[in-house]
């Protein structure tokens, strides 16, 4: 946060709307704490997955299932969406409503594209016999990746309603913290995906 305060000293950005009220500051700090809890939640799911990933009980193994190009494409899409949400926040700091809404709109579209790929991937796996109830590996895989996916879905819905709200009300002391918090959430989802990419997919392809 201290970086932001220093940034706000720069002459072209006199103040940050999102931290101009106590409510806004509280909301952002509270959200950081919430992300701390989410980190533990995902850590537990990762732990469970690592404990169970070899329990395939005769079903398809991770080497047989995963294909790098598709996962790499999904990763690229999601990482780009993090960048676009940053551009949205920059737009907010310039008090430029149009730019903010545009970049958050792009973020939502990229999020939807990622979800589409993930759904396609899951359908493929199910065809190959890798289902939620087939083995402990299946259960833990779908729970971990699916929890991330449902976070993406939630984020997409959330940001969409925020865009509508921002379009109606503009950048105010009330809406600015909401956008800021949503972008924090979106970055968090991205970071989690980087771990999923490493732990689930890369590790799953080499072992």
């Amino acid at each position, binding site marked *: 946060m201290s970086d932001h305060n220093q940034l706000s000293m720069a002459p072209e950005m006199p103040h940050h709307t999102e931290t101009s009220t*106590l409510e806004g500051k509280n909301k952002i*700090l509270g959200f950081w*704490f919430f992300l701390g*809890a989410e980190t533990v939640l995902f850590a537990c799911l990762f732990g*469970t997955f690592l404990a169970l990933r070899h329990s395939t*009980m005769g079903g398809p193994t991770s080497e047989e299932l995963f294909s790098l190009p598709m996962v790499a494409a999904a990763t690229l899409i999601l990482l780009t969406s993090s960048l676009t949400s940053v551009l949205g926040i920059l737009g907010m700091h310039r008090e430029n409503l149009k730019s903010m809404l545009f970049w958050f709109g792009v973020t939502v579209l990229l999020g939807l594209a990622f979800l589409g790929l993930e759904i396609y991937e899951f359908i493929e796996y199910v065809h190959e016999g890798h289902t*939620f109830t087939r083995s402990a590996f299946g*259960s833990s895989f779908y*729970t971990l990746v699916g929890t991330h996916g449902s976070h993406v879905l939630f984020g997409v819905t959330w940001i969409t309603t925020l865009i509508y709200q921002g379009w109606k009300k503009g950048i105010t002391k009330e809406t600015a913290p909401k956008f800021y918090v949503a972008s924090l959430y979106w970055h968090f989802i991205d970071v989690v995906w980087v771990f999923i990419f490493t732990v689930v997919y890369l590790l799953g392809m080499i072992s």
Partner: protein
Amino acid sequence: MYFLSGFFFLLVGGIEALLIRMQLIVPNNHFMVGDTFNQLLTMHGTTMIFLAAMPMIFGLMNVVVPLQIGARDVAFPFMNALGFWLFLAGGLLLNFSWLFGGAPDAGWTSYPLLALNHFSPGPGIDYYVLGLQIAGLSSLMGAINFLVTIVNMRAPGMTFLRMPLFTWATFVTSALLLFAMPPLTVGLILLMFDRLFGSHFFDVAGGGDPVIWQHLFWIFGHPEVYIVVLPAFGVMSEVIATFSKKRLFGYSSMVFAMVLIGFLGFMVWVHHMFTVGLGPMSNAIFAIATMTIAVPTGIKVFNWLFTMWGGCIRFTTPMLFAVGFIPTFVIGGVTGVMLAVPPADFQYQDTYFVVAHFHYVLIGGTVFGMFAGMYYWWPKMFGKKLNETLGRWHFWLFLIGFHMTFLVQHWLGLWGMPRRVFTYQPGYGLEWGNQLSTAGALLMGISIIFLLVNIAVTARRGEAAGSDPWDGRTLEWAISSPAPEYNFAQLPLVRDVDALWYAKMNGKKGVEPAEPIGSIHMPSPSYLPILMAVGFFIAGFGFVMRAIPAAVLGLIMVFITMFMRSFDHDPGYHIEPEEIEATEKGARA
């Protein structure tokens, strides 16, 4: 409201405990056997921990923390209300199980495989899973709320090392909750998936591993012990300092000890699993880590004693509970170190020794702490002091009853009485111990009647207590009782630990204000939290009853209320200076 509903569930859990003791009064009793006994046992544990201890703690925190740091309110009043209704929804859902389909019966730890469909086919465990999930959400919200309140909303001059100990306890407890609830959430989700949707996390036949549940549960469960006991430490520190008329001995070491206990609380969960077979190396590491906790705890106990040493002690009811707490809790701590030795633990495991140990810690810590806090802050909450004579009856009967019940259980355990069983055979020398234990439990029940009578009498005839009935030291005693809805007409300026005492010692009437009187912004009340909690309740009940459409409907209701909340432009309202002055005058007159 938190406190009262927590108290209600305390009575429910207490009645369950009495029924358990009635069954064990004589060998081969037929009062409550088999499944019914398992349900009672499970619900007693679950209710006491989740529905009594935690909400009572949260209730005290809600009242006291904003006052102690000189804030107008908590950071998120909306989330606070939502948290309360969610807790109530979760608690009711759990207790619905008595009426519809049978209560959970796999123990409060609900270990698989016992908790999977094969051994628990009824809906009992589903109630457990979903009720706790909903109540758990409320704990997470409360934790975030208190953390933000304490970090962002302290009065001018209130540095971290000037905060009262109860606020420090809240801070550490909330941090523990923040990181301890998610493992429980994950464990409950996985258990729900296993039971409802046929996954194989814990089911060995499908490649799962039941030990995962034990890890997740105890990564939550051990910090939980400190979550319920640290606030009691905070209460004790306030009460002992106030009634010894001395500044708390070793203030900064108390804070340090508390933070250290919080940290170590996360490092020791494996000591619940010594006998699972994780190997001697991990057992040794976690045994040593566990014993380390005795060090900061010892620091705290000695600091309390040194605070009393040479102090001008007044034995009021809160002080009695605080003083009674010290030896009781120390006994619990000592048996805790005994249990932390793995080879000894192999002997004690699942005997009444363990039961005695954790009741000494939880009742000796949390319950004594909550009673002390209740008598101490009652005047601040309701403007009237509880009756001292009845309070003393309550204390002595409770203390004697408690030791009668649980001291003897140490020996019962060493003599080989296993926990969680509903009967025992005559001729093994277990009879008199069990009878004594049951008699003690009845005595504790009677002492609670004195408390209830006390509350009723005070509500009827109690005299107004005034703003500072105990000659207090911290900020909450600087404003009128009960506190006005905006708490402080002017935010106070804090110059030292024990800000009010500092002002009194400098011959001032009250704490200096840090701002001129101005209009105060208040949030408007909202009905959305109740609606959202009802949504969660419907969803939970739907999943329990395997009625997925109903569950989905409940979730949709949750999302709609979230959407409404987001668009709800809430400007709140303002209390103007004239109105504040009128209120303040009325309170002084």
